[in-house]
């Protein structure tokens, strides 16, 4: 059984799809990218890549997805790669799990924001399966993972009829919507080396401590050069159809010293950029106000961390 609904824009309650298809899909495991793409091309839209399955497997149970075949891509070697090269940056294969990501020494050392966000995603059992690429393809409007990636200027590496490199900000085009064609595969994410020693903070607001749904999230990252903070990055989640960077606030922080007044102005810019809607999880005005609180706390946390305090 499934529930067709878009957050806050619900027309009618459905227990299940009208058509109610039977479970007739096939399962194929592949070892090679081209093999996977050939399968996707054979029946675009009806063949689905399967990564960690944390979203796809329950969806398949409903019998609602018009799927004829799922292609298990976890066994494709290049998609499993997790490598850091100082000159190039971090390559995250699409099927790297959050658990593996969190165990990687370079990631822990150089990408503190990624780590802080990933730690707050789901629970150990889910992080053992859920993949960094799957979370990008799911493209949830309240994702905790996308804002952290956006702050790294991550680029999606896509293969299909041709190879494409799509900046993450373009890759995701709305809640649950990506620029990936039905016969394309996200093979990995490329994250340029940080422009200095990255300091980050992910501020997440939810109903209860263990709640899966983020009501508002703010990712902040800056880069330290000789004790000076430069190259501020800021991304918000759950306050618009997709997570996004707040360039107006970043520009301000890059120009001026982050005094209380400057932070206050950055907060205003973040709030102006937010486009929250009312839904049953939270009201738009609350979300907008919380953008202010979380952004300010995120900036203050980054500043405090750079000073060596660890709030």
């Amino acid at each position, binding site marked *: 059984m499934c529930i067709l609904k878009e957050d806050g824009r619900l027309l009618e309650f459905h227990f299940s799809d009208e058509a109610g298809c039977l*479970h*007739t*899909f*096939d*399962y194929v*495991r592949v070892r090679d990218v081209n093999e996977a793409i050939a399968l996707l091309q054979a029946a675009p839209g009806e063949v689905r890549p*399967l990564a*960690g*399955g*944390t979203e796809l*497997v*329950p969806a*398949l*149970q409903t*019998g609602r997805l018009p799927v004829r075949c*799922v292609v*298990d891509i*976890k066994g494709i070697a290049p998609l499993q790669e997790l490598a850091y090269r100082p000159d190039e940056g971090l390559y995250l294969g699409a099927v790297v799990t959050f*658990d593996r990501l969190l165990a990687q020494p370079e990631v822990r050392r150089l990408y503190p924001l990624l780590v802080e966000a990933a730690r707050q995603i*789901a*629970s*150990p*059992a*889910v992080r*053992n*399966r859920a993949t960094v690429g799957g979370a990008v393809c799911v493209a949830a409007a309240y994702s905790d993972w996308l804002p952290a990636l956006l702050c790294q200027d991550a680029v999606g590496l896509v293969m299909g009829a041709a190879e494409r490199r799509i900046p993450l900000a373009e890759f995701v085009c709305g809640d649950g919507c990506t620029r990936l064609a039905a016969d394309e595969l996200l093979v990995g994410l490329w994250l340029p080396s940080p422009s200095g020693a990255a300091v980050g903070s992910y501020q997440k607001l939810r109903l209860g*401590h*263990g709640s*899966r749904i983020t009501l508002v999230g703010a990712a902040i990252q800056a880069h330290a050069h000789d004790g000076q903070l430069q190259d501020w990055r800021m991304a918000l989640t759950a306050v618009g159809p997709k997570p996004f960077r707040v360039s107006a606030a970043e520009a301000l922080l890059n120009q001026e010293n982050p005094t209380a007044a400057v932070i206050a102005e950055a907060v205003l810019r973040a709030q102006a950029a937010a486009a929250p809607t009312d839904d049953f999880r939270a009201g738009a005005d609350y979300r907008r106000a919380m953008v202010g609180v979380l952004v300010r706390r995120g900036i203050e946390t980054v500043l405090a961390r750079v000073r060596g305090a660890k709030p």
Partner: protein
Amino acid sequence: MRHEITLHVNGHEHRLQVESHHTLLDVLRRQLGLTGTKHGCDCGECGACSIWLNDRLVLSCLVLAAEADGAHVLTVEGLAASGEFAHLQEAFIEHHGMQCGFCTAGFLMAAAALLRENARPDAATIRAALAGNLCRCTGYHGILRAVQTASRMRR
């Protein structure tokens, strides 16, 4: 569609015919009769179906049986039979880490996975490790104390 798979469950090898849409949870419960692993929500939100797959804690409702071909699976029945976590089971009894018991297998598998990696976890680490498992009866206090006690008992 049908697949023939091999599963090593609790140390026993099984050759099984499964359908593409069957989850590992379906197969454990329906085909192998291993009903200790519970079905509480079917979408990863309750933790009652927690098992170990190739020595990693996973939610068996989120894994297709076909994906697990060739894998090693440990369920609560296997955990109990091995005796390796008897001290954890005893601590659950002593501290009333269960009432109705429906969530218990999931908590045991998650707690055992934690203790295997970290013999002396602090309270915050225990909480984080068990955050994906819901219990409607105990209020978690007995569960927390049980895991703390077990970590002290472990040699």
